[in-house]
């Protein structure tokens, strides 16, 4: 139990008659990327919502390391070390990259009811944020407003924001979405080295990236995990082929 960073235990969520999440259990171990794939409408977003805290599961529990986080708010989970990125970029666009990344550092250090000292000259905020940006190879953009960044750079900033929390686990929701082949390759490379520090639960459409990056893959169809294994096993699994081929037939 102790070397599992994130674990979902028998999560269930229904919206009326629709079983959006059906008895899902998964876990994330140190040093790995665990990919979650599935056709559209498989319930990936609902599942992420339950991990990140914006959707409450009907049944089941979520643990971050040994702490149960099922009933916690989004902010509490973040402070405990659950970093996440969004499918649609969710940065404060008029602000600089630095100001976005600094928020996580600020949350970790203490409460935010500090009214006097200016953040613009607060080394305790700037330095860790800068380190997180360097990790994502973006320190040269630190003072650029987010709206001037390319789509790929915004993706990197999102991950840097999550890293600023010194996370124990990362939850990345389609980080490759909308990236060109070049951007996708660069991010893949970054994530490959990142996973050694922080294990990543990766939700991704880009199959090439998934098969290259993931140590383990879980396949979600109609709210339930229908297959689980390494990329070799998933490639050959008849149920997975059926789900995806059936999907493309339709």
């Amino acid at each position, binding site marked *: 139990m102790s070397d599992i960073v994130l674990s979902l235990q028998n999560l269930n969520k229904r919206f009326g008659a629709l079983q959006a999440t059906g008895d899902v259990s998964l876990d994330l171990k140190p040093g790995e990327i665990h990919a979650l794939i599935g056709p559209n409408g498989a319930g990936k977003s609902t599942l992420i919502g339950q991990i990140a805290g914006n959707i409450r599961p009907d049944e089941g529990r979520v643990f971050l390391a040994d702490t149960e986080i099922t009933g916690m708010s989004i902010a509490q989970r973040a402070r405990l070390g659950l970093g996440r990125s969004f499918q649609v970029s969710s940065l404060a666009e008029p602000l*600089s990259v630095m100001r976005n990344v600094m*928020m996580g550092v600020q*949350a970790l250090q203490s409460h935010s*009811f500090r009214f006097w000292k200016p953040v613009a000259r607060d080394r305790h905020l700037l*330095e860790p944020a800068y380190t997180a940006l360097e990790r994502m190879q973006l320190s040269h953009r630190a003072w650029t407003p987010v709206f001037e960044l390319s789509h790929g750079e915004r993706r990197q900033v999102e991950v840097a*924001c999550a890293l600023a929390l010194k996370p124990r686990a990362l939850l990345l929701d389609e980080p490759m979405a909308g990236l060109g082949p070049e951007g996708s390759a660069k991010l893949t490379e970054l994530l490959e080295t990142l996973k050694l520090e922080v294990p990543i639960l990766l939700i991704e459409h880009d199959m090439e990236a998934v098969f290259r990056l993931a140590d383990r893959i879980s396949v979600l169809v109609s709210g339930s995990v229908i297959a689980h294994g390494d990329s070799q096993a998933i490639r050959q699994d008849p149920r997975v082929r059926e789900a995806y081929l059936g999907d493309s037939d339709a």
Partner: protein
Amino acid sequence: MTNNTSLSNSASRGTTVDAAPAPKADRHFDRKGLVQMTLLGLLLLLPVVAYFSGQIYYVNLASRITIIAMAAVGLNLAIGYGGMVSFGHAAYFGLGGYVAGISAYHAFDLTPFMTWPFSVPGSDNLLVIWLAAMLLCGLLALAIGAISLRTTGVYFIMITLAFAQMIYYFANSWPTYGGEDGLPIYIRNTLPVVDSSDALTYFLICFTGLILAMAITSRLMKSRFGAALTMARLNDVRLATAGISPYPIRLVAFVISAAITGLAGALYADLNGFVSPTMLSWHFSGELMVIVILGGVGRLYGPLAGAVLFVMMETFLGGVTQYWQLFLGLVLLGVVLFAKHGVMGWLAGRERNE
């Protein structure tokens, strides 16, 4: 420490993480400083000139502008910096006014305000009144905000309005303190050492209050709290994901905002020697919003610019025609359509968001 080496490396490459790069001292920067100093300078200078040429009316007009500007500084913290569109700030302005009025009433009559569970006498000391006004407005805002901030958008606007209207009708129907006729303050409340009944002195007191309110707002918005509040306005999902709950941040900002507006209300009651439910009415909430929008939402000097424009139009156009608000409407229309960042944005250029 890898942290330190990477930092010193980057420093040796010529980049630094010490602080945000200073904004280039370009034309805009100077223009903004010039506009702000001119605005403050005129506001300070004109009443002095008027006072020494015996035009007390204009000194009091300047005090009125200053106080309204201060009330708008409070509202601007909620609307402009916090993204909380409160349509009920008259509640705090009026409560501040009633604190001054009721306190003076009991001090004049030598009766206690209350006797149970402990005795609270009236006071004609402005320092006591200001402190009480800010505390009570803060408490009221804590209660109203705690409920209202669970909603957003148009519901927030409506619920803040509803609370303010409740207080308005309460004051209207409470005969002890004059009900709808209002409550006179026969002798202006006093300060130790200085003579608050002197028009220029009172103006300078109000002016100091305005400068303090603006300085506090400015400092606040540069702090960690300000950083969190800015993020709550721009993207509250980002703030929560970064580990900070938006709700308490907003609530505290709402309370500070109300305390500033409440202090302005206390000053206003003493300026006029009168407090009535009009100060609590939704018209005044609307006027404050108009002032904030006219001046420039989320601009430090916006409320001041807006208040100058508003009170000037009210006084001078209002002297010519009772339909002056038609012209106010036209100006507001012009600002909203053509100068999105208000008069300050138009005069002083756009503000960097750093």
